[in-house]
């Protein structure tokens, strides 16, 4: 054997103890050390995989839920828009109808007022006519100092008034623009 120890073949003591030591080391490590480390790593790996699967599942679920909510929200939005449109339309219709009704009512009231006025005028004219006739008879009888036949007088006055009215109608009716204007001229003339 090389006395320097640099090329120590065969170093029997080292070879012997190496084989023994390495065999024992191998046995101890493979028997007592590697299994718990392997189990720990495998367990952790399994746990991590489980956690990842779980997270993925949760994520998928959350995504589905989100999609569902979005869909519902869209639906609700559409629904609300529809309701709003409808109510707007209804309100518009209501307004139009109310306006229409109000106009009709107004027209009706005006119509009624006009008829009332016409009626009043008729009766007033009639009264005034009677009064005028009486006054004329009284005045005439006073002037001519003689009692005329009442019936004859009435007839004459009525006739002259009719004539007057007829001539007036023939001469004045051409300038009448509307019914209201016409009635004003008439009442003003009377």
């Amino acid at each position, binding site marked *: 054997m090389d006395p320097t120890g640099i090329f120590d073949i065969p170093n029997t003591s080292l*070879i012997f103890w190496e084989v023994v030591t390495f065999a024992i080391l191998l046995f101890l490590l493979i028997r007592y050390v590697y299994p718990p480390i392997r189990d720990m790593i495998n367990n952790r790996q399994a746990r991590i995989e489980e956690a990842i699967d779980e997270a993925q599942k949760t994520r998928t679920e959350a995504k589905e839920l989100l999609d569902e909510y979005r869909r519902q929200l869209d639906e609700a939005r559409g629904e609300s828009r529809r309701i709003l449109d409808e109510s707007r339309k209804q309100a518009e219709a209501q307004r139009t109808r109310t306006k229409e009704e109000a106009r009709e009512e107004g027209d009706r009231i005006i119509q009624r007022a006009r008829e009332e006025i016409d009626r009043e005028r008729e009766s007033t004219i009639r009264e005034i006519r009677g009064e005028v006739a009486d006054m004329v008879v009284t005045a005439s009888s006073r002037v001519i100092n003689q009692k005329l036949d009442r019936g004859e007088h009435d007839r004459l006055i009525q006739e002259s008034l009719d004539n007057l009215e007829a001539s007036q109608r023939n001469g004045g009716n051409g300038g009448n623009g509307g019914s209201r204007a016409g009635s004003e001229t008439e009442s003003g003339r009377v």
Partner: protein
Amino acid sequence: MSTMLAQMNSEELRSEIIHTWEVGQDVYLELSLFGIDISITKAVIFLWIGAAITFLIMFVGSRMLKNRPGAYQVIVEELYGFGRNSLGGLMGEEGKKWFPYTLTLFIFILVLNLIGLVPNSFPVTSSISFTLVLALLTFVLAQYQGIRSNGVGTYVAAFVPPNMPAKPIMVPFMFVIEWISELSKPLTLAMRLYANILAGHLLIFIFLSFILYAGGTNTAIGLAMPFLSVPMGLALYGFEVFVAVLQAYIFAILTQIYIELSMYKAEH
């Protein structure tokens, strides 16, 4: 090393440089088995220290495993993971069953390489006997696995490539060539680790021994030597740490590859 180089002859200097390997053979306890010397030497003591440290590092790590690992547990688990994922199964899933062996080999050699760098220790892996035994173990295991996986006939036949021309001449020729190649595997495996660690340590000692020129007869060299010797020694020491890891890895992965090559011999 109190003497100056100027006062030393070359034999004394040589013995200073290889001092480590000389004291590696110091016998602490004389033992023999069937006439074979199995004395407890310094080398054997450091072999045991290396084995003990290897075992303790891994054993303590395996006994304090927690669900939330600390730094130490991460190291131990990473070592195991390195064995399982990087060493085992290089050529096929079946090769994975050998990783406990190669992983043990890796950690053991790594620890021995590193404690060999501690001053006054003995670098066990710089002993050719040590590395050769591990390499021969690799060889034996590779042959065993090759025969077990392929059967004796197929395994032996697989040493000759199929479809050879001039069969009567080429088949024996190739058989011999292939066997030489097969036998050179453990030899190179042993030599690589041994030579790397030995050369590394020798280089460190050689550069450190240059300090003996300091203050010598030649003034220029005497002044320059401390600035060359110590930094180079340090640099090589740092490099040796890297070599320690690298060589342990190479030894382990080559062992795994040789075993797996035998395992799938017939398929190639």
